[in-house]
């Protein structure tokens, strides 16, 4: 069995030239045409982190413009493009593919003890669609960009002179990337679980990915048709959203948010899945409330389809409609709260190690709590009338998307980094970066709650004098954030070349991806598994020789030859 023999043979574990998925087959084409889920995952990782930095540059430009209440470094038209591109790039190129594509693709088959996802060619197609969609988006940016806001509300988006069609087509294509990834994950989880891994013996990250995949498959087609209708409206004047031709501009909002609300749960559910894994491992304890956490993911996925109208409380829809959407919106808060309490209970009486991934768990709990709780303000009808379309909303969604999803993504990245690349990174710099990001984030976005409740509307190029100090504080925070990410890029890249070779199981997790070498061989595993409890931390013990964790009884999870296959 690969893990044991090579670990006992000390030298082999730390050999960076050992054959693994990274060096098996070289040349750009072997990557671009790969069917290996690990390589696809890594390519996605590079793609989305590049997008994150691009979106981040747009954000810094926006914040810099907002240093003064009047024009600062750009014209209004440029500013409107900056915030639109920040949103569009971050959402469609980074955060929607985000965790499922970059981490899920790599980890999912490994967690199942499988050799690949169910449909590897579809997986590659998914990645190519991302590349093509991203190309369209880049072309759009180059030929004049878009100034509609990432939400493309009509009639502005159907009448403005910017490159809306190109961007809309890019997002349409990216939608297929998302659908195919979700489709692939559903099939993989249904059909390729190992012996012994019933649904309730699956790691919770997979519940997260599964419930996300349901949304990806069911909601994204609606985005597709919405974008097609938008393009048709612009190119042909079909009249659906144009009031002068008999159309209804608010209908666009219904179509748009019917996808885009579930989409935000595409963003957060995998993140919550990561937190479940990390909080258990770094508390050295079995996860608390497994079934409740698992079912809450499904509940969130299903409920997410029922609340889109809470983005439209002031759009003129009827009081009854508003009431129904408000009530349903509150229902979605409950499963999220349940998760948070179960994670805290997992920490109770644990043995907590503050490695970098765990710092991100703590950040997540702090920031997601704020993000989630501020959603309550927005779900309440009378208060939302005041807060809608203000910076309060901007702060809320950054707390959940950034303070939630991105923080969890960073935690997951630092957690699975050794498995993906076979290297450990500098703990010290990891801590510095995590702290800078935490402080910078709060400085950037907490001030925005106050701006918003005082009445500063969003997407504002100029603002009223009274908001100057808060805006300047927010901008400084964004520079601190940028510094934190800059440092992170530095030590992570450095670790690829100079990092200590990683053992198979550096953190002490009982899930199956740690049963192979770091980084894995191309075909993942040499045998089939008889899966046990993925949170049975007690089945592991620390081995100082390899500075990693090993199973006390390695044979217990191996499927005997000739066992029911």
């Amino acid at each position, binding site marked *: 069995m690969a893990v044991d023999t090579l670990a006992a043979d000390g030298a082999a574990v730390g050999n960076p030239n050992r054959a693994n998925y990274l060096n098996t087959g070289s040349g750009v084409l072997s990557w671009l045409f790969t069917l290996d889920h690990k390589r696809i995952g890594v390519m996605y990782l590079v793609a989305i982190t590049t997008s994150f930095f691009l979106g981040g540059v747009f954000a810094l430009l926006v914040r810099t413009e907002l240093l003064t209440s009047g024009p600062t470094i750009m014209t209004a038209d440029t500013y409107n493009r900056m915030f639109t591109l920040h949103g569009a790039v971050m959402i469609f190129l980074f955060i929607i593919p985000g965790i499922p594509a970059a981490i899920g693709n790599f980890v999912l088959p490994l967690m199942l003890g499988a050799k690949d996802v169910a449909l590897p060619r579809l997986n590659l197609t998914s990645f190519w669609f991302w590349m093509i969609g991203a190309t369209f988006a880049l072309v759009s940016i180059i030929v004049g960009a878009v*100034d509609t806001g990432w939400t493309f509300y009509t009639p502005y988006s159907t009448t403005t002179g910017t490159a809306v069609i190109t961007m809309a087509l890019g997002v349409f294509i990216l939608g297929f990337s998302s659908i195919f990834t979700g489709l692939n994950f559903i099939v993989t989880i249904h059909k390729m679980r190992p012996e012994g891994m019933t649904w309730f013996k699956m790691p919770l990250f997979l519940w997260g990915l599964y419930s996300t995949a349901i949304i990806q498959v069911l909601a994204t087609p609606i985005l597709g048709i919405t974008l097609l209708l938008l393009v048709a409206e612009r190119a042909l004047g079909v009249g659906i959203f144009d009031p002068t031709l008999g159309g*209804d501009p608010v209908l666009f909002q219904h179509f748009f948010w019917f996808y885009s609300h579930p989409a935000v749960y595409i963003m957060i559910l995998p993140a919550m899945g990561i937190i479940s894994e990390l909080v258990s491992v770094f508390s050295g304890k079995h996860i*608390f409330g497994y079934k409740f956490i698992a079912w809450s993911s499904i509940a969130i996925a299903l409920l997410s389809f029922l609340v889109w109208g809470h983005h439209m409380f002031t759009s003129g829809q009827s009081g009854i409609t508003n009431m129904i959407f408000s009530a349903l919106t509150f229902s979605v808060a409950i499963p999220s709260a349940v998760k948070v309490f179960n994670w805290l209970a997992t920490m109770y009486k644990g*043995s907590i190690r503050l490695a970098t991934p765990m710092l991100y768990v703590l950040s997540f709990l702090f920031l997601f709590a704020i993000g989630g709780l501020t959603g309550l303000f927005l779900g309440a*009808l*009378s*208060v939302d009338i005041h807060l*809608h379309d203000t910076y309060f909303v901007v702060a809320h969604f950054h707390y959940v998307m950034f303070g939630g999803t991105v923080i969890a993504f960073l935690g997951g990245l630092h957690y699975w980094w050794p498995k993906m690349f076979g290297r450990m990174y500098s703990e010290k710099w990891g801590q510095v970066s995590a702290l800078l990001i935490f402080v910078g984030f709060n400085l950037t976005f907490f001030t925005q709650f106050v701006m918003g409740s005082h009445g500063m509307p969003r997407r504002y190029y100029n603002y009223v004098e009274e908001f100057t100090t808060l805006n300047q504080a927010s901008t400084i925070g964004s520079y601190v954030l940028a510094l934190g990410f800059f440092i992170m890029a530095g030590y992570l890249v450095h670790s690829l070349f100079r990092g200590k070779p990683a053992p198979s199981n550096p953190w002490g997790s009982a899930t199956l991806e740690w049963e192979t070498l770091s980084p894995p061989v191309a075909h993942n595993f040499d045998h089939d598994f008889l899966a046990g409890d993925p949170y049975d931390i007690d089945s592991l013990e620390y081995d100082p020789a390899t500075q990693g964790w090993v199973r006390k009884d390695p044979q217990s999870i191996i499927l005997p030859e000739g066992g029911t296959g």
Partner: protein
Amino acid sequence: MTATGLLKLLTAVTGSLPDDDGSSFWMPPQVSTVAQGVDWLFNFILAISVFFFLLIVVAMVIFVIKYRHKEGQTAEESPTHNMALELTWTVIPLILVIAIFIFGFKGYLDMSTPPSNAYEVLVEGQKWNWSFTYPNGYIDSDLHVPVDRPVRLVMSSQDVIHSLYIPAFRVKMDVVPGRYAKAWFEATKPGEYDLFCAEYCGTSHSDMIAHVVVHPVGEFETWLEKASNFLETMAPVDAGRKLFQVRGCQQCHSTDGSAKTGPSMLGVFGRTQNLADGSTITVDENYIRESVLEPQARVVAGFEPVMPTYQGRLKDPEIMAIIEYFKSLDSSSSEE
């Protein structure tokens, strides 16, 4: 400590205690009948949020310290689930959010049901200014209202979706082309307040600001009377200037020589202008009138044909006054 006392402490700590005008750390002044209710619910949710936030973060910090990993030790045995706990932390939040929902809904019903004796003002939003039409037909770029009287706004857009937002009144409603949107409020304190556009609408979205002037008792009618007769009471040049300012012209045309969306009106009268089709024209009364009523007919070179028409929106005496105003803007005088 009683529950109310605790709530008071929390609101004080979180800076929600209002000043005299109702403003607090979080909120602008309370100037309408619904503002207090909205702020009360905001504070209620804030108190709940602060409570749970502290619960979560304090627990987290305590656990990290108390259960810190010690060399050679592992976590002690503890249960991996507890139904009673799950039910508790499901049911209690559920009750709280139901309460929040009910309060929010009730407040909303008040905010969306105008009283029957409301004073009606028609509102038109366009890129990028507001215009308010009073019952006597007078149009102004600011919203003047009497204090302590319900006011109902009937709103429509000329082009894209805008949103009328008055933070001090806690009122907001999207203004959609092709339909009429309605909002209402009753102002409770005289003064001047900001009115913003809260739905992104293009280049000058953030400059689409109007003012709400709340008149003390008895003064509103006087103002309206005076303002409505401006064509009679003001000299044509002054009337023209007023029209230029309140009818949306100055959003796009400066009077100091700088080109904005449209050409500057400084020295426009008598100027020889190059047109987009290559010809030239000397600006006279006829050209100005044509530009107001049929702005796409002869566009000045170097500018986009985006000016909306004022056909049906400006009467002839008003156009005359504007022309007189332009005549006064010769190069020797620069005004903004």
